[in-house]
């Protein structure tokens, strides 16, 4: 009891410090100030990351991710399809030694990584992509998801291969470790500097997409139901709960979310399937819209390229392939063959993007929330000309919510709960990714870890209070900046993965690696 009491005291003390003294004054003006200060401080960084390739309106960073994924796909001769069946087999535990029971299984490493990626990207991100880029964005999203499987494979294999086993028996892995150790092993210079650079971006990404974006969207979702109230209130509550889990070590909360989040994921896909089954006669038409939109744009802002950019961008934001975050989560698995975790990880973009994101997109298209001009068959743009006009003038989560709501009246409430829980689990996951980058820079230790965790919680309040624009921009920018360093380094390290792949597949073929009979 004393422990619980001290944790509660610590939480309250934290909230008192984190809350600005003038919290009593008009909250709207506080939100506005946070917002303006935030946009001013991060604008240059966002502009750099999303700079267009000269002469086009195509952001270079999106090209960077897609080219990376394509190169890995070619270099590993479409590993995502060749070893797909084997990946399923590994997750089922067919190749797991019974003697290792009780260690982290492939299934656990996969689901842990998935709980970090499945979330708002699949619900809000897809709605943003389809709302701006039209149904065609879905096609490009799926393509990016399929290619991204090869990026995940590469980074997660390296994540396990070069992880650190700490003196206390725990493991630390991720791009910062494979960049520094891998470059040293290959005799390449600059590994340490690149690893530090990655860590800095990873910490920013943890504060951005892994934190502020989540808090922001969760708040938006809550106000949909309760009516408008200042964002910092949601922020403080979220920060308090996250603080209790990551600093107070209150496992029960984490345990509850671990159980509920997969359930929510299944419920979400189930609900999407219900909507699709009820409207089965429209599925063919929806796919028609997706294909037609992919190559013509169907009148969306930016046409074909607009659809493509939105699709690629949201896919990358949702499944994080090439970003390097998954390599941190996957590195805890128990295996003597690092490449097996690579195979398992390639299922992640498939589940996240190709299955769940596509479900969301189909529901939005089928629900006909996007307004079509009956004369031309093209989509009607909103007044500003930036996005497709929708029935209820909605975007983001609200659009997904309206789409589901048009078929299942009560589902928006479940969706709101799902968004809040997904936001929470993503925050917990990213607090860990950020922490690993933080300890890579500043060393492991109770005090340094606590400093990070407190800053992390403060950013939750900022994220919930700021308006969506600057937050979403900064979140995207920080996460994509991780991919700049990560993919650059993967080009140098991919030959290590290739050697592993050659050795493993030879032994698999010869029968040296075989299934255990359980």
């Amino acid at each position: 009891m004393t422990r619980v009491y001290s944790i509660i005291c610590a939480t309250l003390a934290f909230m008192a410090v984190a809350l600005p003294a003038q919290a009593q004054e008009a909250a709207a003006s506080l939100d506005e100030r946070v917002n303006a200060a935030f946009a001013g401080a991060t604008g240059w960084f966002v502009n750099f990351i999303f700079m267009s390739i000269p002469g086009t309106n195509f952001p270079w960073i999106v090209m960077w991710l897609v080219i990376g994924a394509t190169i890995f796909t070619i270099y590993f001769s479409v590993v995502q399809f060749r070893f797909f069946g084997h990946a399923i087999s590994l997750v089922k535990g067919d190749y797991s030694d019974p003697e290792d029971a009780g260690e982290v299984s492939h299934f656990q490493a996969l689901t842990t990584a998935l709980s970090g990626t499945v979330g708002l990207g699949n619900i809000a991100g897809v709605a943003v992509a389809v709302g701006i880029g039209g149904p065609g964005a879905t096609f490009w999203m799926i393509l990016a998801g399929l290619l991204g499987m090869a990026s995940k494979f590469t980074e997660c294999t390296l994540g396990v291969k070069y992880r650190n086993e700490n003196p206390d028996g725990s493991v630390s892995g991720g791009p910062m470790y494979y960049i520094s150790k891998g470059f040293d092993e290959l005799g390449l210079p600059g590994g340490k500097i690149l690893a530090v650079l990655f860590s800095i971006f990873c910490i920013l990404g943890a504060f951005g997409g892994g934190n502020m974006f989540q808090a922001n969207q969760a708040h938006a979702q809550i106000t949909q139901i309760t009516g408008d109230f200042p964002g910092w209130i949601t922020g403080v509550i979220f920060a308090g709960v996250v603080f209790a889990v990551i600093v107070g070590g209150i496992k029960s909360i984490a345990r509850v979310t671990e159980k509920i989040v997969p359930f929510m994921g299944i419920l979400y896909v189930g609900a999407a399937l219900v909507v699709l089954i009820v409207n089965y006669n429209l599925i063919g038409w929806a796919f028609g819209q997706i294909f037609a939109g992919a190559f013509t744009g169907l009148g969306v802002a930016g046409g074909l390229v607009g659809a493509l950019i939105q699709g690629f961008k949201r896919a990358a934001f949702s499944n994080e392939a090439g970003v390097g975050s998954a390599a941190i989560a996957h590195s805890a698995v128990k295996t003597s063959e690092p490449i097996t975790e690579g195979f398992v990880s390639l299922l992640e973009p498939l589940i996240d993007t190709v299955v769940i994101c596509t479900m969301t997109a189909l529901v939005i298209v089928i629900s006909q929330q996007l307004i079509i001009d009956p004369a031309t068959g093209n989509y009607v743009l909103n007044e500003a000309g930036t996005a497709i006009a929708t029935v209820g003038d909605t975007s983001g989560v609200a659009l997904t919510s309206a789409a589901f709501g048009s078929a299942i009246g009560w589902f928006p409430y479940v969706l709101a709960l799902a968004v809040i829980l997904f936001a929470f689990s993503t925050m917990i996951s990213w607090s860990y990714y950020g922490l690993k980058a933080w300890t890579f820079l500043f060393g492991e230790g109770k005090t340094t870890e606590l400093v990070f965790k407190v800053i992390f919680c403060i950013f939750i309040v900022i994220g919930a209070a700021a308006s969506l624009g600057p937050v979403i921009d900064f979140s995207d920018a920080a996460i994509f900046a991780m991919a700049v360093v990560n993919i650059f380094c993967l080009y140098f390290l991919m030959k290590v993965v290739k050697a592993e792949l050659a050795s493993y597949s030879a032994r698999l073929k010869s029968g040296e690696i075989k299934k255990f009979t359980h």
Partner: protein
Amino acid sequence: MKLIIGLDGQSTGEKALEFAKTVAATSSGCELIVVYVIEWSPFSFHSAEENARRHKRREEEIQIARERVLDPALASLAKEGLTARGIVRHGDVADTIDNIAHAEGATQIIVARTGTGGLSKHIFGSSTANLVMNARVPVTVVA
């Protein structure tokens, strides 16, 4: 004769041990294997932090099981002049005991009746009941 004694660390486990002693006394050179299974599923969900610490936690769990359950059981068997060895394994209780018994070519499995009931027992059945229904080796359940 080779006997597998499945223990769960509760008081009912003592009865299984006592019964095994009686059975072992009937034949000379009886081999005894005491098995303790830590309930575990590779298909459960964990946070990233728990995964990172899992290896260490597993070692601790095994050590605690050895110290608190297996070692006293082995000592009590040794007192009767019986040779026995202990195995600690993570997994589904019924499956793991059956797998070990099958792999060892055991004559029979001796387990205690599962003590307490509860909601989970109504839904999933007790591990003893599961073992009795699925084992490939004869099972004796000690009341």
